[in-house]
């Protein structure tokens, strides 16, 4: 019952309220802004757990990059015509289904660990000894050794997704003039300084 607990309730309370606002505000841009607020508070929860590296990565990747692009796209939508709040109730069944799945997973994990989070039998590999290591070192020491396969796999998946989306949107357009900087820089020798005589002009 200390400041830590109070901070936890503050962060989680803001997460819950802002998540609710994400789906209930009429304006999509406000939704994205509330989503960013809940990301930030989730980072705060990580800090309370002494996982400051994860907190910073969450802010850098999700808030600093992904949500910016998200906001970037949503800002350009003409949302006055695309909003239709009447049929929002039709999504309730699938929402309940996803919620039930999440709660079931949480319950399974909690039963397996017998409410003792130091018991780590649910993890696929046993964790190394992290005493005396900082957060960042601890993550690095397992991510690039024990979990290298998963790490590489997720990297390859992201690479394929990136190349795939580039290939899907790439199209050659006719008659587009491009600036080739190296050619411009090499033009030096072709430029002549000509002393033009008054009244006589110059031959080009």
């Amino acid at each position, binding site marked *: 019952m*200390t*400041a830590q607990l109070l901070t936890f309730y503050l962060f989680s309370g803001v997460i819950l309220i802002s998540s609710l606002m994400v789906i209930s505000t009429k*304006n999509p*841009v*406000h939704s994205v*802004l509330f989503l*960013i607020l809940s990301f930030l508070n989730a980072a705060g929860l990580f800090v309370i757990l002494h996982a*400051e*590296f994860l907190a*910073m*990565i969450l*802010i*850098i990747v999700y*808030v*600093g*990059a992904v949500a*910016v*692009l998200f*906001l*970037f796209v949503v*800002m*350009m939508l003409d949302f006055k015509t695309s909003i239709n709040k009447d049929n929002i109730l039709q999504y309730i069944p699938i929402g309940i289904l996803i919620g039930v799945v999440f709660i079931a997973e949480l319950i399974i994990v909690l039963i397996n660990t017998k409410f003792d989070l130091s018991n780590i039998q649910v993890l696929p590999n046993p964790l190394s000894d992290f005493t005396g290591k*900082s*957060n*960042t070192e601890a993550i690095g020491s397992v991510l690039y050794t024990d979990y290298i396969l998963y790490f590489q796999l997720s990297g390859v998946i992201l690479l394929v997704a990136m190349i795939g989306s580039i290939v899907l949107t790439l199209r050659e357009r006719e008659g587009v003039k491009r*600036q080739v*900087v190296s050619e411009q820089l090499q033009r030096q020798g072709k430029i002549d300084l000509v002393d033009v005589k008054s009244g006589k002009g110059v031959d080009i």
Partner: protein
Amino acid sequence: MISLAQTYFIEVMTIILYCLLIFVPLLLGVVMALYADRKIWAAVQKRRGPNVVGPYGLFQVPADGLKFIFKEIILPDGSDKTVFLIAPIITLALSITAWAVVPVQAGVVLANINVGILYIFAISSLGVYGILMAGWSSNSKYPFFGALRSAAQMVSYEVSIGFVIITVLLCVGSLNLTEIVMAQKTMWFFIPLFPMFIVFFISALAETNRPPFDLPEAESELVAGYQTEYSGMPFVLFLFGEYINILLMCAMTTILFLGGWLPPIDIYPLNAVPGFVWFLLKVIFVFYLFAMVKAFVPRYRYDQLMRLGWKVFLPLSLFAVVATSSILFFFNLAPGM
């Protein structure tokens, strides 16, 4: 409950005092930076610059500030008023928050956290939201274009800043800013990592929307970019946020490449000078470079800016990460190996 209040009251009061110790010099620094910026710019163009208000025009910036405070705050009719007013507050608050982890001398820092450099990177990547929100909520074309340009520009240059930071971290072996400075005791990092120093400096210009990358507020095309609809106090908040960010980038350059508070050579008359004086001198030097670039270089075209970020800096910094780690690995120089 009373004991709880007693325990935390003194602590909270001390923290507030420390925050003021950062905030007040920072505000003073911004005022001086604004003045120095105008004076340097004027000197390059053979003008006098501000020289009427106070001795040598020193009170010009406070006078401008007073003028802005007493001006009416105009809220555009079609704007999203909450977001419109939150945007400048976010810009200023974020730029000040980042200073919490900047060490000005050995041990003189508000929060000496383990992931200091990541914290600054995270906070400065949030800075784009102030601009995006301002541009969108103004509900006007020029601010919107400014915001779009700014978002694309800042996200692009953040990538290469991230890679440059990684090359420095490879040589340090820690994310703590104090340890980054202490690792430069034998040699400042701008000597072995000189190309990365240049990349970082130019990316810092782009990240803070300084000329020649000030396209988000290019007055010849977009009136004043995302600030077009702002007046009075909110405008001042933007201005101060922008300059605090510039000073932060100067401090970052100092910490990452110019040895922070360390003296140039560790001999008697130089190392007797207190560390924060060296730190201040280096920050002023980097700011001088920022101001000179503003005076010298014409504004980039937007596609050239994007080309520089993605086709020049990104491959260069990516190559530098691989090259640095290879060299450190093969010559057994890597810290902690």
